């Protein structure tokens, strides 16, 4: 294996490409502290993009075109696997893997500059916000596993609201950052990239709706009723902070997208 290929293998770990993508998901599952997970979510793709120039100055000329397809396939594969995920920590790591892997289609199209870093940061911030919500759910329920539990919306309306907004952000709802990130990605990739990104988008939406379906609808958790245990909702301060983060993210994404749309 040449040095360049070794560099590209490293990039494939941090900008996930199956089967290297399994390293991130295994590491995320092993990391128990929330702050470690947040750091991983925020830094992982940036490390990969930082390694790209070390691997090659012009990746679009050095990489085989099938890598773009493998990147898209990785995105579709993890988005499809999301459909059956009930543990929300796994959901976050699969979703982030699926979103980051779409960067390969853009890199092969010649886009590997600051905008790609910003787009991946948009994915990371969304994943990190969702991870914080999942942590709060684990505090509330004892674990962030959906299983047979339903009706969080009536037990802890603020927490359910924050989680639903997080899921809406993850599935690319306007005007939250992922909507603009996905727009940027499809505008900077070829026809296969557009089709792949759309399949991924559809699968995210399906999967996210399945999750909030369980959170919002149906009977409340039976164990909570039997044991009369108090379920802790998010504080008003945390809820407001989450809302402000969403508004700030939307504002920043709009300013960023206005810049490249006006060009």
């Amino acid at each position: 294996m040449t040095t360049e290929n070794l560099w590209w293998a490293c990039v494939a770990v941090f900008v996930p490409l199956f089967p290297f993508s399994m390293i991130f998901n295994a590491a995320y599952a092993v990391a128990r502290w929330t702050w470690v997970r947040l750091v991983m979510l925020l830094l992982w793709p940036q490390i990969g993009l930082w390694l790209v120039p070390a691997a090659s100055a012009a990746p679009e000329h050095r990489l085989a075109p099938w890598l773009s397809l493998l990147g898209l396939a990785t995105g579709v594969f993890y988005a499809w696997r999301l459909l059956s995920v009930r543990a929300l920590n796994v959901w976050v790591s699969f979703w982030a893997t699926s979103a980051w892997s779409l960067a390969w289609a853009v890199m092969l199209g010649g886009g590997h500059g600051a905008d790609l870093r910003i787009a991946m940061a948009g994915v990371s911030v969304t994943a990190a916000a969702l991870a914080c919500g999942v942590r709060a759910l684990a505090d509330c329920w004892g674990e962030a596993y959906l299983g047979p539990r339903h009706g969080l919306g009536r037990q802890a309306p603020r927490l359910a609201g924050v989680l639903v907004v997080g899921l809406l952000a993850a599935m690319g709802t306007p005007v939250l950052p992922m909507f603009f990130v996905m727009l940027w990605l499809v505008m900077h990739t070829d026809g296969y990239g557009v089709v792949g990104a759309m399949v991924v988008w559809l699968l995210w939406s399906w999967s996210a709706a399945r999750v909030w379906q369980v959170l919002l609808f149906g009977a409340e958790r039976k164990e909570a009723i039997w044991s009369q245990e108090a379920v802790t909702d998010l504080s008003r301060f945390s809820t407001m902070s989450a809302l402000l983060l969403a508004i700030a993210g939307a504002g920043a994404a709009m300013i960023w997208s206005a810049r490249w749309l006006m060009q």
Partner: protein
Amino acid sequence: MGLTLLLALALLGACLSMPAATAGAMRLGPLALLLDHLAVAMAVLVAAISLVVHVYSMRYMADEPGYARFFALLDLMTADILLLVCAGDLLTLLLAWFLVGVVLYFLLGHDTTRTASGRYAFWTFLTYRIGDLPLLAAALLLWRGYGSLQLPELFDRVAAEPGLQLAGWPVVGVVALLVALAAFARSAQFPLHPWLPYSMEGPTPVSALMHAGIVNAGGFLLNRFAPLFLHTPAVLHTVFVVGLVTALMGSALMLTQNDIKKSLGYSTMGQMGFMVMECGLGAFSLAIYHLIAHGLFKATLFLGSGSVIGQARQHDGVPPDEVYTFVVERRPMRPTRLPWAVALGVTVVVPALVLGLAHALIAADFVHTQGAIILLFFGWVTGAQVFFSIHRLPSENPWRTMGMTLLSFVIVVVGYTLVGHLFERFLYPNRAISAALYAAAGIDLVAFDALVVLLTVALVGAWMMTLYADAIEMPEPASGRWNRVYLNLYALFSREFYVADVYRRIGEGLIAAAKRVNVRLRWV
């Protein structure tokens, strides 16, 4: 909401006072609003229906939990639809188009104690998302091909260079097909329709808003992109076929459902089929008139249903119809129905007579023009639907009912033709564009004749099935091969053509396979 309606009316007044082809536009960075005749007409409709729904909901939802949330979502939905109809660029259109499905999900699933409302809101959401993505692809292709996001500018460039290709694909043709797909999902066209009949699980005001306004978005979208369809006859023919199939299926399912709510849902599906079919025939303005008329009558129907139920509770409770007479008064039923042979004759002979007279009296080639095709397919299918309905309902004097129906039908057709013509002058003041749309949608004589034969066979077949259904209620029901055919058809209709079952199977299969793969890969 009242102020919104006043503003919309003021805009309509301003539009009417300006020269016909003028359109107002407002821009903020890449975003823009376009206030042309189509946008303003739709804005008036949306604001009016939303105002009625708001006023109705104030009392209807008063005792429901989440009152403030409901109104916040209702306001957001109204604002979003207004943004959608006034969008002057592709980005604003996409933003508004994507948001409709999300807000509608939370409105339909307002009552979180009911799992069913969540399940059907989920179906709606997923279908809407399926419709979002083709519009995104269309926007992307237009931007790449013609280098602009602004709709008026894009349409000018398309008119200047309609044959542009990207990677060997005709941009306008592919975009028109993608726009049509987005419209199909939003307006419940076959096979993307199963969400609509089941969306009644939401609160009544939401059903009214959805069936009267939101579901019409497909017709609006086709009209908004009408300048593209000038260059894509094949796509217009596809739109016509999908609309026709949807209209026939919606009408058939409406007539065969026992559940009144589902029947109403399929009625909307049939109407959406007519609306899309009109676009496929080049009668774009007629589709807008249709969606406005349908919106007003469907909103009245939904919002009036509560008071009908209330009246029924206050009074006797059981109306003195034949079931009452049979069950309560123990008198034998005496069903009096319109003879099926007469109904069949009317539904098959009258359209042929109308076309023949038009051929003889107006012009020899009249039957080949778009006007005749619209009259045939819209008038014929609608008329047949009415006759099937009145045949099902026993009446004291079926001949009088049939006479009144024929009279109403003539009034409706004449009224439709006149108002449709006025609407065409309002929405498409440039006669050349509407003429070009009709020309693009035109079909040749062979296709026309084939469609007439196909429709005749379908209607005669439906009447034969009705006759058979009446016959098997007799003491000695028919047996053998025809009975099997009838039972299979009965199963097909009662299971709503198995479309929802197929989707459910596919969904469950995909989820089960994902689970197996996840277990095999140890969830990493």
